[in-house]
């Protein structure tokens, strides 16, 4: 009789043990699920901001190729205006104005074609966050024209607008 009771107690203990193991598995699983979902939401938010900034840069009148104050081609950017914007964005009041537009990000343009040796990317805005968890880059192909080398048509390169947002 006593032996039977012991066996039944043992069975109960084993059942409880298995139940708690299953409970732990379930908790771990749902915690991981929540963490993944949260990461995805944060990633989507940063990506959205990157794209928003890229669209703002793409429509900046300071950068567009112009002739007689009229825009020539959409998606065409003036190389010398981009040089100027880098300096402009660092000066006093302008710094605040561009921070409102671009926040904590780095916006740069790098030429892809025609290839040139040792050409550094053209950084048009740089405001790095001191502590960040992730950098998500967004790329947009653009035409970068140099109207100084060829006034009539311009020497246009295949370039890429890279926006890095700090999350």
């Amino acid at each position: 009789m006593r032996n039977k009771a012991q066996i039944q107690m043992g069975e109960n203990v084993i059942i409880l043990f298995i139940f708690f193991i299953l409970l732990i598995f379930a908790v771990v699983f749902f915690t991981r699920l929540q963490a993944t979902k949260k990461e995805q939401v944060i990633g989507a938010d940063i990506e959205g901001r990157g794209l928003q900034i890229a669209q703002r840069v793409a429509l900046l009148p300071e950068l567009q190729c112009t002739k007689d104050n009229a825009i020539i081609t959409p998606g065409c950017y003036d190389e010398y205006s981009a040089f100027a914007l880098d300096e402009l964005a660092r000066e006093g009041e302008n710094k605040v104005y561009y921070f409102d537009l671009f926040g904590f990000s780095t916006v740069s343009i790098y030429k892809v074609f025609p290839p040139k040796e040792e050409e550094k990317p053209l950084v048009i805005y740089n405001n790095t966050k001191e502590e960040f968890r992730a950098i998500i880059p967004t790329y947009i192909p653009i035409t970068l024209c140099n109207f100084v080398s060829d006034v009539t048509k311009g020497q246009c390169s295949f370039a890429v607008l890279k926006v890095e947002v700090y999350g």
Partner: protein
Amino acid sequence: MAKIAQMEIMGLAVIIILLALGMFFVAQFTLFKEKPTAAQTFQQRQLASNFISTLLSSNADCPGSSATFTDLIEEMPNTFTNLPCPIPLDKYFESKVKDILIQTLDIWGEGRFTYNLTVVFPQGVPPDIEDIAISNGCPPTSQQETKIFPIPSDFGTILVQMKICY
């Protein structure tokens, strides 16, 4: 009798374990799979158009000339060309576009983008002119975004088509 009941219970336990494992794998592949975000989808939709318009208005790097890739495509069907570009023009175009793709779409988004770029010539071009196709494998089942740019030429309209798959 007791042994048969024990065996049945063991069988049921095995079935439950297998079902649990199956459900775990299904959950792993459905719940943890990253879906493209709205921003990603927007970027992918714009990419084909941005890429091809940028390419066509860019300098083709022909020595001493500011000819663009559009000029290059226009001249391809002609037997004689005034462009100072290395000939044959179609091979030159292909190699330069491949160089650009290697530095852009091939490395962006950790191989997320596959593409298919084609230049289709109209009927009536000289027989040695063949359509150009540059691809890194576009799965037929994937979602696709296609942009077509027509370029007028002496022989008719040349179609430049960029297909981005994701």
